[in-house]
Each structure stands twice: as structure tokens, then as C-alpha cells.
């Protein structure tokens, strides 16, 4: 019996045990907030889909997601830095420079202000020049 077989047997067994423990032993006092489906950021919508929701939340969420994904690219360079040597290092630096510029852009445009008046959402499309 090799390691992978043990893994395939052990993981389901452990999962079932943990779930059963949860069902059997945990205190169960439901209220409305607990039994509703969990959607992060705002309350889930029933029936009517015309309820207002916060666009800023999605904006910040999407921007976070992008940067999270890009940071993921740091992992391969971390483990292969000895193999790709100085060339790979500089490529990675260029990549992160571009990423930083993107961050400067979104910060400068005010996309990260969540509820502020400075948020990019609230700004009009036309630049108000002072002249």
C-alpha cells in the first residue's frame, strides 16, 4: 500500500468523520441570518433582482482578484530563480514594474476609495478643467 492509496482512503474517511462530528455535537440554534445563503458583501437577493447593490464593492473585488492572480506569478519565479538566473530575474522585475504602474494608475484614479466621494464611480466622465 503506497502513499497515494493511503491518501485516497484517509482523506474521505477524515472528511466524513469531521462532518459527522459537526452534525452530531455542534449546538444548532438557527436564525434567519444563519440559514440564508452566504454571498459576501451584501444580502442575497430574493425574487426581485432590481435591488440596489454597491458597484464599488465589485470594483474593489475585481481589482483585488487581478492583483492576487498576478502575485501568483511570483511563486514560479521564486522556485526557479536559480535556473533562470539573472535574465529571468530582470524579466520578473520588468513584469512587476508594469504591475506597479497599473497599481499606481488605479490608486491615482481613486478606484480603491470604497464609499468616498473621490471614488472613480462617482466621478463624471468629463474632466472638469479649471480654466
Amino acid at each position, binding site marked *: 500500500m503506497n502513499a497515494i492509496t493511503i491518501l485516497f482512503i484517509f482523506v474521505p474517511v477524515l472528511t466524513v468523520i469531521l462532518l459527522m462530528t459537526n452534525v452530531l455535537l455542534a449546538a444548532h440554534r438557527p436564525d434567519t441570518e444563519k440559514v440564508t445563503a452566504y454571498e459576501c458583501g451584501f444580502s442575497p437577493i430574493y425574487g426581485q433582482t432590481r435591488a440596489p447593490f454597491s458597484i464599488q464593492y465589485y470594483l474593489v473585488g475585481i481589482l483585488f482578484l487581478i492583483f492576487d492572480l498576478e502575485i501568483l506569478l511570483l511563486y514560479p519565479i521564486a522556485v526557479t530563480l536559480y535556473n533562470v538566473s539573472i535574465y529571468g530575474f530582470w524579466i520578473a522585475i520588468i513584469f512587476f514594474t508594469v504591475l506597479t*504602474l497599473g497599481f499606481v494608475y488605479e490608486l491615482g484614479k481613486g478606484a480603491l476609495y470604497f464609499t468616498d466621494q473621490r471614488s472613480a464611480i462617482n466621478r463624471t466622465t468629463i474632466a472638469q478643467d479649471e480654466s
Partner: protein
Amino acid sequence: MAIFGHLKCASVLCLALTVMLVLGIFSLMTAVALPNVNISPVLLTRVASIVLLYAAALSFNALDIQAIGSGVGIYSGLFQVSSVSQSVDTFIFLVGAMILLPWAPVTNTVMAGARSVFSAVPTIAEYPLMILFTTCGATFLVSSADLVSIYLSIELQSFAVYILATLYRDSESATSAGLKYFLLGGLSSALILLGSVLVYAYTGLTNLESIFALLSVGGVENLTTGLGPCIIGLTILVVGFLFKVSAAPFHNWSPDVYDGVPTIVTTWLAIMPKISIFVLLLELQSGFGFTGASLSLLVNGVPFDVWKNLLLISSLLSLIIGTVVGLAQYRIKRLFAYSTISHVGFLLLALAVNSEESIESFLFYIVQYSITNLNAFLILLAFGYMLYSSVGRKDGYGTDVQFISDIAGQFRANPLLGLALTLCLFSMAGVPPLIGFFGKQMVLYSATHSGYYFLSFVAIIVSVISASYYLKIVRVIHFDTGNVEDNASTLSQEIKLSNVHSFTIATLTMAITLFVFKPSIILNSTSLLALTLFHY
């Protein structure tokens, strides 16, 4: 050793081009973002225009390298620079720089209108930035020689164009058109990706030259074994490209999108992505020809050329649909969209014939199509500024001309602009002394020479029919009585067109009209480029 010197020189020059564009993007991005840097968007647009002109000069410079004739692989073979790609780069940059020029003059009335309506002037700082991004993608696309680089550059080009389409985010029509463009563009990108994946899965290759070499081995009898799936993959890839250039069975998105987005963006949409994707198709085709490969199947022992037939069918449908459906349009940008589809039919015909003559006519047609369409859209923008910049439209379309009837009787109010638009439309219809006639004539001449009589016949009939809708606009401009009298805007003394804008229109109109007296500049370059594709 001299050849290595040349190669190094070539890659350095191409690198210079990329660095120019990328530095332009970075500096504009920083300038747009930083709140303390107070540069007006008009200035940023001019800077972007100058960046594009410099890039045009750089790419033109690279033509002097001898080794470039047969093509030089750069960036470890991901891109292939040839004389065709460099010349098309130059052309793309020049046209792009010209599209950046049409701005309404920023006067106080206009700015007040901009605040109350929403988009009287495109004073949006991101506009030049997006233009640089999409131009970057377009120039990468014409020189890419690998499935990976093709996909990445086509996405770079398209994403920036999706953002351009929704640039006026307060406008309902622009937002919905942009969303539609994004969804259908995403669909076609998915097709391209699916095609690439099939090719890679069954050959293990992404480099185009290796794929062509593999395909040149012989006819494929079965679609499911051997190289068959690779052929299916390449076909799906081409279908994706045809989707992007809105060739006929895949054209349905383009009228809606062109109509919905602001005219200044329609100008970009109708011209730039088409140039780059058509040139990519040309390079794929010449790559096939170079290795002696063909995208053909053996059906009962008879070779059936999938590539050529795909292009020919698409061309036939584009010609017919672009013309017949265009007859029923009363919104001017929808009409231009259908006229674009019929021009795409001509381009595909010239591409599919694939003789030296026809490739020459194909390149020439691209040039004349871009110049004429660019001029037509610039004039539409100018009409919009003249009519609405001081009064503003009531229906929330900014200063864009929406209906053909909007410009009724404008020949009397603005004779020169009216005349210029008339010349453009005549050129599109193919009336003899203008540049459009020579484009159509060369395409038809090469097609009949190679024995494509049916399609040439269809093309001739169709261009007669399409003349009727161009003439309809001409009639409306010249003879209909519009609401010129009660329009106070025509009487005010305020400047309504910027100098650069009117200068560009004048130059382009002159180029269209006087081409017949000095045709050698464009004709010689296109015929030389066509020859480099066949004789290196």
C-alpha cells in the same frame, strides 16, 4: 558575418519600435493617474499622436535592412518581421495618428455643453492611452509568427478596443454596444483559442512555420485521424478571424456596435482592427504558399482547398449581405457598417485568389479602404461638431450625427464639407477618377485573370447596387431641404472645427481625388510588397 550584423540591426530596430510604444503607454498612464499632474486630455492626445508618428518613422526605418526581405524572426521566433509587416506597421501608425486628430475645439460653450450633456467633447484622458494599447496589439499582430503570440496580441488589441467602445460610460447606447462587442469579441477569441488548442493538441507545435512544414507533407484524407484535426483547428482559427473583421456569416454584431458607440470610436473600430487582422490572414496564406502546404482535404481522391473555399464563400456572402441589407438603413453609421461589410467581401475575394496581382490589389484595397473610410468618418465628426457643438442634441447622443436626414441640405450650409463627403462616397462606390475605383478595378481584374468569373460578376453587380445607397446620402446632402434655417448654431461666430481636423480632411480628400495623377507612390509600394511575398 554581415548577415548577422543585419539581423542584429533588424532586431534592435524592432525593439526600438516596441520600446517607443511601451514607454509612451507608461508615461501616459502615469500622467493620467497622478492627481497632481494637471495635463489637459487634449495635450495627452497630441502626445500620443506624436508617439505614433515617431513609431511610424522607426518602423519605416527598419525597411532599409536587407535581411528583412525574407523575414527575420525576433523574440526567439515568436515574431517574424518582414517588409510586409514593417510597411503595414508604418501605415497603421500613420492612420492611428490621424484618427487621434479630430477634436472639437475646446471653447467655453463646448465645455458648458460637455458638463450638461455628457460627451460634447471627448475630454477623456484614457482615450489616447487605450489607443496606444490597441495600436501596440495591432502591430504585434501583423508580425506574430506563433499561435501564442497571435492570441496574445489579438487580445491586447481587442481588450483596448472594448474599453474604447464603452469610453462614454454615461451613454446608454455606447454601454450596450460595448457590452455586445465584448461578448461577441470574447466568443470569437474563444474560437481562435479552440482552433489553436486543436492544432497544438494534434501536432505539438505552436510555431506557424513548423505547422506549415508539417502540413506540406501531403493531403489529408480523414478529418479525425492524422493531421485532420489540425486542419479543423486551423479552419476554426480562420473563422475566428473572420468573426473579428465582421465578414458576412459572422457580421451581425458590427452594425449594432458601430451605431451604438460614439463616432470618434467608430472611426477606430471600422479601420484599425481590420487592417491588422487582414494582414495577419495574408501572412498566414503566404506562409502556406511558401512551404507548399495547403489547408486541403482529399475528398474521394480530389483535393478540396478548405482555406480558399472558406474565404470565397465568406466573400460572396459579405458582398451580397453588405449591399442588400445596406439598402434599408436610415441611420448613417449602420449604413457605413454595411458598406464596410461589402468592402470586406472585396478584400476577401482578393485574398482568396492568391496570385501576385491579387495580393497587390489586396494591399492596395486595404490602403484605399482605410483612407476613404477615415475621411468619411472625419467628415461625419466634423458635421456633428458644426451642427451640435453649440446647441447640443436633445436625445442624448452628444454631438454625433445619427440619421442620414440629420445632414440634409448641408451642402448649402457647409459646401466644402459636403463636397468632401460626396467625393468620399463616390470613391467608396467606385466612380472612376477616384481612388476607390482603382481598388475595385484591380481586385476584379486579378479575379477575372485567375478565372473567378462568377464572383467577379457578383462583385460588379453588387457594387452597382451599393452605389444606390451612397447616392442616396449624396442626394440628401445636396438636394433635401433640412432644418438649416432654424438652426441657430450655423450663424454663431464661434470656431467649430479645429485647424488640424479640417487640415486632415482636406489632405485626405485631396489624396482621394488626385490619386489618379500620381498613382506610383502607393501602387509601386504595394506591388513591391506583393512581390516580396512571392519571390523570396
